């Protein structure tokens, strides 16, 4: 019984922490982009106000599928969060969590897809089809990287891969396999839908894509979903390439560094068209990843 209460408390703590940290990161990103454009920018706590405002607004539903899609998107990312070690916080550790995380992230995307089907807006359909196409693009190089890491360290749990890099910082995969880390960074930018690869949200073109029909409370929920997704993807990168961390503070710090770099790269580039984005992923990142994989195997 005590064990169960402890576990539920841990669930809630991790969820609240990840949400709050993700919203903070979004605020920091807005500030950084503003400074790059020589603007003052909104305050760092702006996303918290946005969420509060959105949950205070009215919301119109487009039927059961629409509601269910939003819940599935949020639930999918919260479920994913429990399999990712955040510093020393780790709820479930077992073989195969790397692959499990990839599958569960797809659940969140499919939830978004269901929501857009429910809304029936053609721009939302274009957006989600672009998102899923892009997923096809970046998952291939990412899986090649993951399998070569799994082959190298003979473990498929994120915790195990993190432990394998322990000791000196020279053991980090960032320094041991820099090309792989670079590919994973590009993949990370694609996963988060940052600037060169943001064809799926493209506000000026298809009106913010999958979320085009979500207003008020639905948009608030999707904002929370996005903040948790950011944390998951950054945590995955930090665990796989920056050697994780033994406490949550240094882990958050490493995530922040990666996030700032990704934001800066993102604010420099214009947008890829979706087919060009996928072609790019299948040409350079996939090529380099395969070369690196051959190097590891031979």
């Amino acid at each position: 019984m005590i064990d169960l209460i402890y576990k539920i408390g841990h669930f809630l703590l991790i969820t609240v922490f990840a949400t709050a940290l993700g919203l903070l990161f979004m605020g920091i990103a807005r500030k950084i982009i503003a400074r790059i454009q020589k603007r003052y920018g909104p305050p760092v706590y702006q996303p918290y106000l946005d969420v509060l405002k959105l949950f205070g607004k009215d919301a119109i539903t487009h039927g059961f599928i629409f509601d269910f899609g939003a819940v599935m998107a949020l639930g999918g990312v919260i479920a994913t969060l429990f399999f990712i070690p955040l510093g020393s916080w780790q709820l479930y550790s077992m073989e195969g969590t790397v692959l499990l995380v990839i599958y569960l992230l797809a659940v969140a995307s499919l939830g978004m897809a269901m929501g857009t089907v429910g809304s029936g807006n053609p721009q939302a359909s274009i957006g989600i089809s672009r998102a899923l196409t892009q997923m096809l693009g970046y998952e291939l190089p990412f899986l090649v990287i993951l399998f070569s890491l799994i082959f190298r360290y003979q473990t498929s749990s994120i915790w195990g891969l993190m432990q394998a890099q322990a000791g000196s910082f020279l053991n980090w995969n960032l320094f041991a396999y820099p090309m792989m880390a670079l590919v994973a960074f590009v993949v990370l930018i694609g996963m988060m839908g940052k600037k060169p690869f943001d064809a799926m949200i493209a506000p000026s073109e298809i009106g913010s894509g999958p979320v085009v029909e979500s207003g008020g409370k639905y948009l608030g929920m999707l904002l929370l979903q996005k903040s948790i997704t950011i944390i998951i993807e950054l945590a995955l990168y930090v665990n796989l390439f920056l050697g994780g961390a033994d406490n949550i503070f240094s882990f958050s710090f490493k995530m922040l560094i990666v996030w700032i770099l990704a934001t800066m790269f993102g604010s420099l580039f214009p947008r890829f068209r979706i087919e060009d984005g996928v072609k790019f992923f299948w040409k350079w990142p996939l090529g380099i990843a395969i070369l690196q994989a051959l190097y590891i195997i031979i």
Partner: protein
Amino acid sequence: MNNNFVKGSWQEILDWAQNKSINMLHYCTGCGAIELPPTMTSRYDMSRFGIGPAATPRQADLLLVTGYLSTKTLRRLIYTYEQMQAPKFVVGFGSCTINGGMYWDSYNTIKQLDKYLPVEMYIAGCMPRPEAILDGLLKLKKMINNGEADGYQRYQDNLEFYHQNQEAVLGEVQRTQ
């Protein structure tokens, strides 16, 4: 602590959050649209007040009507307004929305926006400069914080009046609800 007090304080908190975070949908039919890019970008940067652009009507709180409205665009404007979610505000922009401006004796533009949609405030000028827009939006923020910006409630209360006026110029208007 009675229920009304709790409700009132919660509403005050929401009003405060709303005034700090406004997503703006600029309905760019008139020449006022040209004043908005400098207001949004590096020179005047409205995002430091928590005002940013919204991509679609569903995500927007504020509808900026930037300039004259022909009867054809008025219909789209009404559809846009009705798609927005409840705490929603309309700001008329430039003299065209106040009294028709230079289109006063045109046969196919409307003269007074206030007769068709509940307008919170006007920003006068032809066209208002970015400073004037920022000043107007800061006043709107103050109004929202004090709970005075209640256009969407006025629209609900006087639905007959607005519908009558709209149908007088447009003929039939498609209603979703």
